[in-house]
């Protein structure tokens, strides 16, 4: 597998150099990379799922460490891990169901180290409850006796169900890999189509003669607005230019090309104009577990202005941006300081920024953070590819997409 390590390293390098941008591209590439990792991974006879999980985790740790701020990578790694767990479970349940019906008995008991077949169907159901669902009150009393739940002899169906054929097993191992790759393909498909699915809901949210405000540029927002325009809605868009990268300019250009009435404003004019706005629609960099968002710089200000005038603040985010972590210290841990050259021209300011000439430290500092944290109480609505959700509902989506064992892929998060 030398070539897969090379691909991984290449991807890691590109992440480190920030050559890959945008969470959609990053997550698609990450998913594709993990898919090839899985397809090239050799599987042992027993415990294939664990082997796969280990392999994916090893690669995942590298990817996350390469760019910890790009949370989408971590999300995809966790999604893939969850997929493996899910597929493994559905396979074992199916296998045991089959065995129960067949009632075959065979003599090779030795490979029973694989723990699934000895358990009764009820035990497997219990296991599925505990692995796939996050812990809940319901399972509180049922959960503990994982070790003690070996059912009493009177209740188990019979000893014959305990054995499985090795031939059957190798079929199963191939099947597991196949199923996992299939599911990862679906995931890649989802990532690719998430813009369209979000855009489909545009007409429900944008009405005639409304004024929409957005800041910077986001592909999701562009598609969303265009979808509303295509469905014959006529509305106006205010675009805050999004200093220091001024991506709002490109967004404005594209909107005008599609025939939308567009107004470009400076970021500092947002508060002045917010009273005329009906709805703020923005994209996010990542959605945290508490419903807060990590968003391009300047959005917290927009959210506060919107709250002041009771304007709905709507965030568009594909489900790959959903991150199962809580922002403990978002301003410091989940931010990135970009080059000062985006703000200032080195030619003009080189004398006051020069470390060599002056005595001691330079008097001029430039700080250029890339992201803002917008707390959940400022967000009115999330529109994801599965529909519109309240910020306080994010945890439920997270419970659907991730298994709790994978929340900490890294040994030390945030370091």
């Amino acid at each position, binding site marked *: 597998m030398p070539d897969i390590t090379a691909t991984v390293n290449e991807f890691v390098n590109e992440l480190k150099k920030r050559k890959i941008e945008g969470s959609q591209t990053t997550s698609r590439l990450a998913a594709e990379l993990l898919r090839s990792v899985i397809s090239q991974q050799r599987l042992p006879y027993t415990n294939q799922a664990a082997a796969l999980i280990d392999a994916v985790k090893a690669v995942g740790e590298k990817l996350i460490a390469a760019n910890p701020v790009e949370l989408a990578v971590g999300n995809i790694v966790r999604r893939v891990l969850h997929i493996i767990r899910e597929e493994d479970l559905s396979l074992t349940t199916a296998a045991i169901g089959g065995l129960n019906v067949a009632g075959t008995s065979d003599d090779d008991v030795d490979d029973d180290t694989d723990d699934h077949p000895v358990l009764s169907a009820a035990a497997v159901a219990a296991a599925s409850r505990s692995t796939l669902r996050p812990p809940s009150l319901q399972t509180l009393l049922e959960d503990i006796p994982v070790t003690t739940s070996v059912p009493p002899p009177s*209740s188990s169906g019979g000893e014959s169900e305990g054995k499985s054929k090795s031939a059957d097993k190798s079929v199963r191992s191939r099947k597991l890999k196949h199923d996992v790759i299939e599911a990862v393909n679906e995931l890649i498909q989802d990532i690719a189509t998430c813009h369209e699915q979000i855009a489909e809901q545009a007409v429900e949210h944008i009405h005639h003669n409304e004024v929409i405000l957005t800041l910077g540029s986001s592909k999701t927002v562009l598609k969303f607005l265009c979808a509303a325009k295509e469905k014959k809605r006529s509305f106006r868009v205010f675009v805050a230019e999004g200093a220091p990268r001024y991506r709002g300019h490109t967004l404005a250009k594209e909107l005008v090309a599609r025939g939308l009435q567009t107004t470009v404003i400076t970021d500092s004019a947002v508060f002045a104009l917010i009273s005329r706005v009906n709805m703020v629609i923005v994209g996010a960099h990542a959605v945290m577990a508490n419903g807060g968002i990590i968003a391009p710089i300047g959005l917290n200000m927009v959210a506060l202005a919107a709250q002041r005038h009771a304007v709905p603040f709507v965030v568009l985010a594909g489900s790959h941006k959903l991150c199962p972590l809580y922002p403990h210290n978002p301003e410091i841990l989940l931010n990135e300081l970009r080059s000062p050259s985006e703000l200032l021209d080195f030619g003009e300011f080189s004398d006051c920024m020069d470390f060599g000439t002056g005595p001691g430290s330079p008097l001029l500092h430039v700080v250029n953070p890339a992201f803002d944290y917008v707390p959940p109480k400022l967000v009115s609505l999330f529109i994801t590819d599965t529909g519109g959700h309240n910020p306080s509902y994010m945890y439920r989506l997270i419970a659907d997409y991730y298994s*709790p064992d994978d929340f900490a892929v890294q040994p030390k998060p945030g370091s």
Partner: protein
Amino acid sequence: MWWRSPSFILDKQQHLQHPDDNGDEDSSYSTLTMTGAAQNPNPNSNISAYYQTRAAHHGVVTSDWLAQAQAAVGAREEGSDDGGEVEVGQKKKKVFDVIDEFNNWRKQPDLAEAVAAIRALASVIRSIEASTMMELEVELKKASDCLKSWDRTSISLTAGCDLFMRYVTRTSALEYENFSSAKARLIERAEKFGEISHKARKIIAMLSQDFIFDGCTILVHGFSRVVLEVLKLAAANKKLFRVFCTEGRPDRTGLRVSNEMAKLDVPVRLILDSAVAYTMDEVDMVLVGADGVVESGGIINVIGTYQIALVAHSMNKPVYVAAESYKFARLYPLDQKDMVPALRPIDFGVPIPSKVEVETSARDYTPPQYLSLLFTDLGVLTPSVVSDELIQLYL
């Protein structure tokens, strides 16, 4: 009483109607249970047994208060003896068993209230001579109702009983077993519950480590085993933080907490309950335990939590709650007076003229909008998750 919410009035009426209901039923057992319940062994029925025990376990008590408590306990025993003389019959014995058993367990300072309740129910299962599952369920239901009505002020007692009853009625595994093994399984689970509660605290401590960063100041109110576990683990992880403890009148729980912190070499400052707003600008987060987490996601906790949460909210400081998930209770208080009043004696050190009314409530309700996150063994939750969990379990 026009300002009270309707649910409160309904509760009240139910409570009053209880004896009448019993009269209609001809089952002698049920009458006995109910009379056992209605005749609250606590003679000062307006004093909360739950908060008495808490104070005895966690507070630094004055000798004066101790004497008072002693008197109360003595009176209570007398009361229950009276009851014993009035009630005759073999089954009554069992009813009292539950409560006695429960009281034995709750006397252990390390045991959570819900654990004590579930252990008491387990002992009921053990002593019951029922021969079918249905019978067992009915008997158990009676015992748990009796236990619940014995101390209405204890939320974790109610929640623990409900959780266990739900387990008994809902667990599909029990349906396929014969009666004796099902019974054994139930008893085993109940015994294990102490372990769960212990494990839950460990999980909560681990989950909350991410939120305690170096150099932070934590304001702690009330004595909570979970909070203590969190702080202990943080200290063991060599985090640098300091703790502000409120004094916690009238139990003076703050003294106990500050003692524990001093033992751990954590810098600690004891503040007056009334100094919370004064010190809040230095505080980075408020960390409290909970007596119960209600369906709205709000918490019920020792008195003073609400005002601390209000101060913290107005100064934009996060309020974190550490609570085990078995404290989730199916209650939906709409305001402070919407719960059964839990009162406890307060020692002012000087005689209070009889004309002066003293507010003696031991707990208050903190609405969910003032809480940031709940640290539970189910994970770190936003307050709105609580109702989801409860609905999943009980509907």
